[in-house]
């Protein structure tokens, strides 16, 4: 509303994306350049001139990549600067995403060289730890993808996790079966999803508000039952059998990858397989085409005879199943029992992964792994007594999401009708 322009002033909003000097690539270039400089100067100066060892095993033993910490910090820092410079110069614009990734990766490596100098980082342990932390996030983010691609915002992932975790612990213990636990986890997730679906789709209540309320409801219900039931008699109610670990002969012997991917439990595989299933489902099947249509332009879908509300119900409930599995992971795999508020915000990080991953299954997978790595690194740093507060790394998912939503890493576009109830005119 305030006319400040003169004949030569550029509009601050993006004009023609190609015509402007400070386009996205150049802005990102500046960012990468700055973190590269930070790495080179700060990490390089702080890193002790000791050997940093990255071992291929789960401990200090065996083969390892070794590098002098100071040298490594400076070397990778300089590489990050180079990547930033390439972006800033407007070179290789076709591969700008790859250059950007390289810049961020070298920054992380520079950081690691500083932190690991004089010590060792077991790669297998880091990788499997990352995956373990990422699995519930993958389930949660996929649950979000299912709902939101059909146009229903799901911020109740946290509540679905809690109900799933609780149901798995309770029924798993009572039935003495891990599979009964897994099934009940899905039921727990669907319960929350069902309330969300009815209120959002049938009664047109604001979806974000409903989601938040459902998180509080799940926290209250599971917390109450935990205190009244489980704490009183943990043996009969809160000692579910653990999910068995399966080792695939042959494949499990591949170095690094084998122990991480092929010596693990069903839920890890299920999460990874679901990423592919949802991806191909969305892009290649009738269900997927209709889901996307309903999420983008429900009226158009209605006029070709698609039942908009029915499809939304289906997707939100399917999301409940998936999020329930994510909840089961906490009790049946990670800890072995239920605890009050044990998910501790993982559902919100899953939501962040969904947005950071741009509402796509593979994007969600990448984001979940990235966030899992940050968390794993945080525990590693506090274990080796690093001067960097691990809270910084725990902040990363939220920080990354803010950056993503602000549009700094490419256009983040939610489905056009996300969060809008469909009412026939």
């Amino acid at each position, binding site marked *: *509303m*305030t*006319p*400040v*322009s*003169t*004949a*030569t*002033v*550029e*509009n601050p*909003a*993006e*004009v*023609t*994306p190609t015509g402007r000097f400070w386009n996205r690539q150049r802005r990102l270039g500046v960012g990468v350049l700055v973190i590269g400089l930070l790495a080179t100067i700060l990490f390089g100066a702080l890193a002790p001139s000791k050997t940093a060892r990255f071992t291929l095993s789960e401990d200090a033993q065996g083969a390892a990549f070794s590098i002098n910490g100071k040298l490594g910090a400076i070397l990778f820092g300089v590489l990050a600067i180079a990547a930033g410079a390439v972006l800033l110069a407007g070179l290789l614009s076709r591969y700008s995403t790859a250059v950007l990734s390289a810049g961020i990766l070298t920054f992380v490596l520079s950081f690691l060289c500083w932190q690991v100098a004089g010590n060792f980082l077991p790669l297998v342990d880091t990788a499997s730890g990352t995956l373990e932390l990422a699995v519930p996030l993958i389930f949660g983010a996929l649950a979000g993808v299912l709902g939101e691609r059909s146009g229903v915002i799901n911020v109740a992932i946290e509540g679905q996790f809690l109900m799933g975790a609780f149901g798995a612990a309770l029924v798993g213990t009572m039935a003495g079966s891990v599979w009964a636990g897994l099934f009940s986890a899905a039921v727990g997730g669907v319960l929350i999803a069902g309330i969300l679906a009815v209120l959002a789709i049938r009664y047109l209540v604001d979806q974000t508000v409903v989601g938040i309320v459902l998180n509080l409801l799940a926290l209250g219900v599971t917390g109450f039952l935990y205190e009244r039931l489980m704490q009183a008699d943990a043996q009969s109610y809160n000692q579910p059998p653990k999910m068995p670990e399966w080792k695939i002969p042959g494949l499990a012997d591949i170095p690094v990858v084998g122990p991480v991917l092929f010596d693990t439990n069903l839920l890890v595989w299920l999460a990874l397989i679901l990423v592919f299933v949802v991806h*191909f489902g969305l892009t*290649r*099947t*009738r269900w997927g*085409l*209709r889901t*996307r*249509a309903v999420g*983008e*332009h429900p*009226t*158009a*879908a*209605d*006029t*070709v*005879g*698609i*039942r908009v509300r029915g499809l939304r119900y289906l997707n939100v409930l399917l999301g409940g199943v998936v999020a329930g599995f994510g909840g089961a992971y906490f009790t049946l795999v990670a800890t072995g029992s239920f605890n009050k508020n044990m998910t501790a915000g993982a559902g919100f990080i899953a939501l962040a992964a969904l947005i950071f991953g741009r509402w796509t299954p593979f994007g969600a997978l990448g984001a979940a792994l990235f966030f899992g790595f940050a968390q794993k690194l945080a525990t590693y740093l506090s274990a080796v007594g690093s001067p960097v507060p691990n809270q910084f790394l725990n902040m990363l998912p939220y920080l990354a999401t803010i950056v993503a939503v602000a549009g700094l890493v490419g256009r983040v576009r939610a489905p*056009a009708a996300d969060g809008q109830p469909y009412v*026939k005119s």
Partner: protein
Amino acid sequence: MHPVSTGAARRLRSVLRLQEIPLRLELRGITKRFGDLVANDHIDLTVEPGEVHALLGENGAGKSTLMNQLYGLLQPDEGEIVVDGEARTFRSPRDAIAAGIGMVHQHFMLVPVFTVAENIALGAEKTKAGFLDRRRARREVLEVSERYGLPVDPDALVENLPVGAQQRVEIVKALTRDVDLLILDEPTAVLTPQETEELLAVMRGLCDAGKSIVFITHKLKEVKAIADRITVIRRGRTVGTASPGTAEDELAALMVGRAVTLEVDKTPAEPGREVLTISGLAVADDRGVRAVDDVDLVVRAGEVLGIAGVQGNGQTELVEAVMGLRTPLAGSITVDNEDLIRMSTKQILRSGIGYVPEDRSLDGVVKEFSVAENLVLDQYDRPPYGNAFRLDPAAVDKSARERVEQFDIRTSSPDSAVGTLSGGNQQKVVVAREMSRPLRLFIASQPTRGVDVGSIEFIHGRIVHERDVGTAVLVVSSELDEVVALADRIAVMYRGKILAIVPPDTPREELGLLMAGITDSTRPASDAGDPAAEKGTE
């Protein structure tokens, strides 16, 4: 859910007669109410096989409501839909499609981020081993597109297509569903005259291929050019049927309920000093795309400059830049040598510029406010209406009564909420307010959109009067007839540029070509029977 599918009956019939027979449709006593409003009041309509049946009526007459019931989007409160002698109930568009009825909506029902093929396949997807059969979808699109002469690219993203192409996609979408009756809801509203011509040709082709068409419109010329029969609807009732031979003014009278003059009486302009001067203006639209590109314009005192063009060619952004609602990227805008770019919209309004925005309900009035309040939205904080701290309700009311009288605003009281008035009377409120200040420049965007014929006449008269007292007037309209009727000079805008400035007696086809961005005078003109070439207004 629904009775024995007519799908089966139709197949049987086509086998027996060895060819597809167009269907016969009858609507009997269709009635639809929304609360107290009777949108459709016992409407009867018969569409014979293979005919183009025009449904003519003003905006809000109930045409779209009627067709939405036929297409299963709404359910009638009373009456029945009879297809080939069999009464049918359409609970959803799926039932209508199964019965052989397709519809192209006024606002296209296409998913912008899908490809053409995906949009067309949606809802009737063919699968192979559980996966979408994309190759087959593409092939079907190409087949239908070729058979009916409707060029579409199956792999293009719909959001990248111009409206004319999107409309073809919609028609192809209906045709791939094997419909025999096609409803076209205001299909020409977004098209250039040339695109309209192409569409009419396509419609003729479809009828030759044995399809029936219900053509909803309020444009008389198109009806006369294409329709086999015409049903006129007014305020939810069928008021008559007519043949295409009926004279235009007769049809117009049926449509609006009384005879109306269609031309604006005005004397030749006497242009004076340059009032509005725009030079080298560039403005970005909401997406950051340059919507106005290096525009130079001058509007003189005592003349009406009309801007013609298909909507979305930068007219909106141009006017918003002048009014200080949008910051230009480059260029200058001055009124009597005062720079407008550095002024706020409030300052601009108070410097003697009147502005009728194109979207009345969004920018023109506050619907919940009373007529009186809406009439002082621009001057509420100035004497005599009030000052920075207080409002003088008596003064507001007094001047409201005067202006309601003067501008023939039909309202039960100045205290009624503006939202309860008809579109035409709401627009008169806007015009009355904007003409109540001393003016040097008057800008009207789509001054008569969604306005009844009586109010159109009135508003046009006021605009010409404003010109005659020496105000510079800028009129932007996507209705070519309105621009031709009002303007002393016509500037044609296309893709952000002024292609030409021509006198109002320029032949229609020439204006049409300019609106389509064609400046090349060597292009052969359309044939003599071209309805768009006939003069006169709708």
